[in-house]
């Protein structure tokens, strides 16, 4: 797969279709793969990677890249293409300056999942069909790919590639997913338990803003959290309010536009399950206003800029559930 993608990248550059190509290259560690722009054959041959750690969603980078002049090529995994379409819909990406190549994805791995499987001293990971060959300080070990997947890929909602000029690999389909299970578990708790759960999670937030910066939906040029008089521009010591406010508003600002790509949780250095906040909104929207997948349909009206005369009243929140 990596070789096919590299060959395609070189072809795009040399045939003059694109002046530069957006892909991935290895960062400080082999599992720390970062987005990168490639402008020459040499760079691609040397640095371009596509492997089990290319989780980064390149769609957000297309906002800036599509405005720099000239055409940019981009490799997009199925979940990235949802963000790609959503951003086109919001007129954030200029589609005429983008040449998108869809790349089928076998699910992205999480180094922590590999470590949690009891493999220590990991030096490198190699793909071998459905399993991973893990080179470690203590010799090679084999691991089922399913065991190493990140949370978002274990509950993958769709392998469908949308809106791309061409494909590398097979076109996939939407698939049933258990992604709302954890949200449902939380909903079944008492408010006290939920409060304790979220306090435990959100109190770890260091306000690095990585979740905001990586989110394809969070692409405002001016952000409410950059306002120095907002009272929420950085971490408030010994106070829970700032964390609650930041995370509620962050999730609310992308409600109805979040494609559930899971980047927020991937980049969180504190491992806060931020996707659970976004999925709560997605679940509520699906249940209250009918199924909606952001980015799937270029013509569908987003649920929060739409309404029905017989929408449920906000009191449904008070009335539903078993909790007192």
């Amino acid at each position, binding site marked *: 797969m990596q070789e096919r993608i590299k060959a395609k990248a070189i072809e795009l550059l040399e045939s003059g279709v694109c002046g530069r190509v957006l892909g991935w290259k290895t960062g400080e560690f082999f599992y720390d793969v970062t987005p990168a722009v490639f402008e020459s054959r040499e760079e691609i041959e040397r640095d371009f990677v596509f492997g089990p750690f290319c989780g980064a969603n390149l769609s957000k980078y297309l906002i800036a890249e599509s405005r720099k002049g000239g055409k940019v090529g981009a490799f997009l995994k199925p979940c990235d293409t949802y963000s790609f379409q959503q951003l086109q819909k919001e007129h954030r990406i200029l589609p005429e300056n983008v040449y998108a190549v869809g790349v089928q994805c076998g699910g992205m791995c999480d180094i922590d999942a590999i470590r949690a499987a009891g493999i220590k001293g990991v030096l490198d990971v190699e793909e071998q069909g459905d399993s991973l060959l893990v080179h470690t300080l203590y010799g090679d070990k084999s691991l089922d790919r399913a065991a190493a997947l990140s949370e978002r890929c274990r509950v993958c909602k769709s392998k469908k590639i949308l809106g791309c000029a061409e494909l590398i690999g097979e076109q996939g389909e939407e698939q049933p997913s258990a992604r709302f299970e954890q949200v449902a578990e939380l909903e079944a708790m008492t408010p006290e338990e939920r409060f304790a759960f979220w306090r435990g999670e959100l109190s770890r937030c260091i306000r690095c803003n990585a979740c905001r910066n990586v989110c394809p939906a969070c692409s405002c040029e001016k952000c409410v959290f950059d306002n120095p008089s907002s*009272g929420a521009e950085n971490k408030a010591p010994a*106070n829970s309010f700032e964390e609650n406010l930041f995370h509620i508003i962050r999730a609310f600002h992308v409600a109805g536009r979040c494609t559930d790509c899971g980047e927020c949780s991937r980049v969180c250095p504190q491992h806060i399950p931020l996707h659970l906040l976004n999925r709560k909104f997605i679940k509520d929207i699906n249940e209250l206003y009918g199924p909606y997948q952001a980015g799937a349909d270029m013509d569908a009206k987003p649920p*929060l800029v739409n309404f029905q005369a017989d929408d449920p009243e*906000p009191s449904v*929140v008070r009335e539903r559930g078993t909790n007192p």
Partner: protein
Amino acid sequence: MQVNETFKPTVVAFCCNWCSYAGADLAGTNRLQYPADVKIIRIPCSCRLNPLFILRAFQRGADGVILCGCHPGDCHYTTGNYYARRRMTLLFSMLDYLGIERERTRVEWVSAAEGAKFAETMNDFVETVTRLGENRRLEDLRCKSE
């Protein structure tokens, strides 16, 4: 700190200019009683209520926040309250999801002719919030005066 004083909640009521604010006026001119703990903030339309305003109100010491607007279908701007309805439903659901008491937030539709409903709603809401007690789960210690 005062001891043995009965708890007086602070309730913020966001009222739309065209219906509910006039409804509150009517309650006043009709001399209908409702608690003085309700602080009314006039907004141009219920749709103007940014979810951030609600969190801000809690931050600055509110124990309950209520939004009053025109009845669905009667919005002065035709559809504003329909959008507000969706937003508030999702926001309240999220607050509940984070474990914040779901009775602290409410939306009521009050028309300009419903002074009695306004007073009744406020009486009921203040009573509910008083029962819940002080807002602890969404407070900001930086904004506390004590």
